[in-house]
């Protein structure tokens, strides 16, 4: 039996794809800047710097709008891993990813309008969206306006901790993105989750 529920309002979908586009752009230009070398031109340095600045500021705006819309619509609640039994649900979900999925077992938890995410999703999205992302955006802004960065840092330029945090959180988001895109293929069919993300309708 196939059920259809309208899961994702338009604003979430627009935000999601804007976010996706900006993060891919930032990842490619960010790599070009950090690993800049005359022998390894991915995107030319000054072009990369320009694109990275514009995309970065856009991402900050998108994040700010997302946060406001989240509060207004109550969507933020989806990201909160809810007791009781979080650990137990995480464990079942992990087991499914490690074993059940290969045996063709059904998803351990069904998607409902009240709970879009499974416990693992909620936890990792919560960590990325409310911990890693703000650190990355804040350090990015400091990088753009270095006059607000600390002056010195243990005998080094004060921009060092800002740069390293920006680099590490950026790398974490890239790794999340790889896993996230892949896990998008683990729906009812390999493409059903991508369809949901476009149409808003969930099917299983």
């Amino acid at each position, binding site marked *: 039996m196939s059920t259809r529920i309208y899961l994702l309002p338009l604003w979430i979908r627009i935000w999601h794809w804007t976010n996706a586009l900006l993060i891919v752009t930032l990842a490619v230009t960010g790599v070009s800047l950090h690993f800049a*070398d005359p022998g390894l031109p991915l995107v030319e*340095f000054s072009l990369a710097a320009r694109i990275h600045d514009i995309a970065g500021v856009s991402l900050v705006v998108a994040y700010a709008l997302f946060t406001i819309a989240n509060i207004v619509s109550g969507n933020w609640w989806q990201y909160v891993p809810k007791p009781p039994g979080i650990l137990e649900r995480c464990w079942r979900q992990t087991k499914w990813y490690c074993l059940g999925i*290969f045996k063709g077992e059904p998803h351990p938890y069904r998607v409902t309008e009240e709970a879009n995410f499974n416990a693992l999703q909620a936890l990792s999205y919560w960590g990325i969206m409310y911990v890693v992302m703000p650190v990355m955006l804040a350090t990015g802004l400091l990088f753009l306006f270095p006059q607000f960065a600390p002056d010195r840092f243990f005998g080094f*330029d004060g*921009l*060092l901790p*800002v740069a390293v945090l920006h680099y590490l959180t950026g790398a974490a988001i890239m790794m999340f993105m790889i896993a996230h895109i892949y896990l998008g293929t683990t729906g009812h069919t390999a493409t059903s989750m991508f369809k949901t993300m476009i149409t808003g309708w969930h099917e299983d």
Partner: protein
Amino acid sequence: MFISWCKSAAVPILVLTGSVWAFSVLAAEAASIDTATIEKNRKANEACFACHSAAAINKPPRADLDLGKLKESRLQPEDFTPSDHGVMDCRQCHGRGYDDFPHSVTGKDETSPCTECHAAKVLRLEPQFNGSVHAKAKGLKEKFTCSTCHNAHINIVALKLKEPHKIVAQDNHGCLECHNSDETFAKFSPDGEKTPGVKKKRPDIDTIHEWLPNTRLHWQAVRCVECHTPEVAAGKMLSHEILNKEKAEKKCVTCHSANSSLKTRLYRHMVKDEQQKYGFTNSVILSNSYVIGATRHPLLDSTVIGLVILTLLGVLAHGAIRIICAIRRKENSQ
């Protein structure tokens, strides 16, 4: 001995007769100038600072001083003493015309040119200087001397100045005095090619370099000469050939890469202290500036690249197993 040589009126004649080497040796010898002589020079200079200082301008020692003219000078005892020439007696460069006040009218013409004591360096610099944009522009060469950029009373050579931001401030001040002031620029500016009789207008320095993001940040972290002079061998003195806009460096990765040219330029006196502090490449640069692409941590980079590759391999392997299992299930069910 050195002092008496320099004071001597015979000096210019000797230079002309070719005693170039003797004088470069003298200048070099001055590094070991004895403390008694330094004391004597400082004492002698106090007579000049009695009028040539901010204190004297605030409280003039006599009534007939042209305070306006005194104020134009940036000369201060606290700046002069630590400068390259701070160990010297003013009169070694200015001659005897200034012993009394009012000063002798011919005093200005007697100022010793740099060659007099730095013959060897001038010999090396002159061809570079003659190839620079300022020497090539018509009517500019005559007005452009060594002291146009080098303030003999204040400047401290990079090796002694050590701190990069101080070197940047000093050297950029030399260029920006003209290139950031319409008034000063107009005094030197040649006539425009298509507009004889009308001086060339000063192009705004930030507008010219608009292609360089964080322009103001760059002015504080690098010098004009980093981009406007040709590359020289590592450890060699910076060239004095100022390059025009066609030849100036525009490639970001010249500085923003692991093999940054900053090592042979602004940081050339520091690279010998490079110790890869906490595992960072170019950690001497990092002590002053974080320069994207240049100040990296190879170990951290390898770790991050490794983790990203592991994530990729992980999802690829997971996907492959899923496909294999799905095919098996299909076969079994048939």
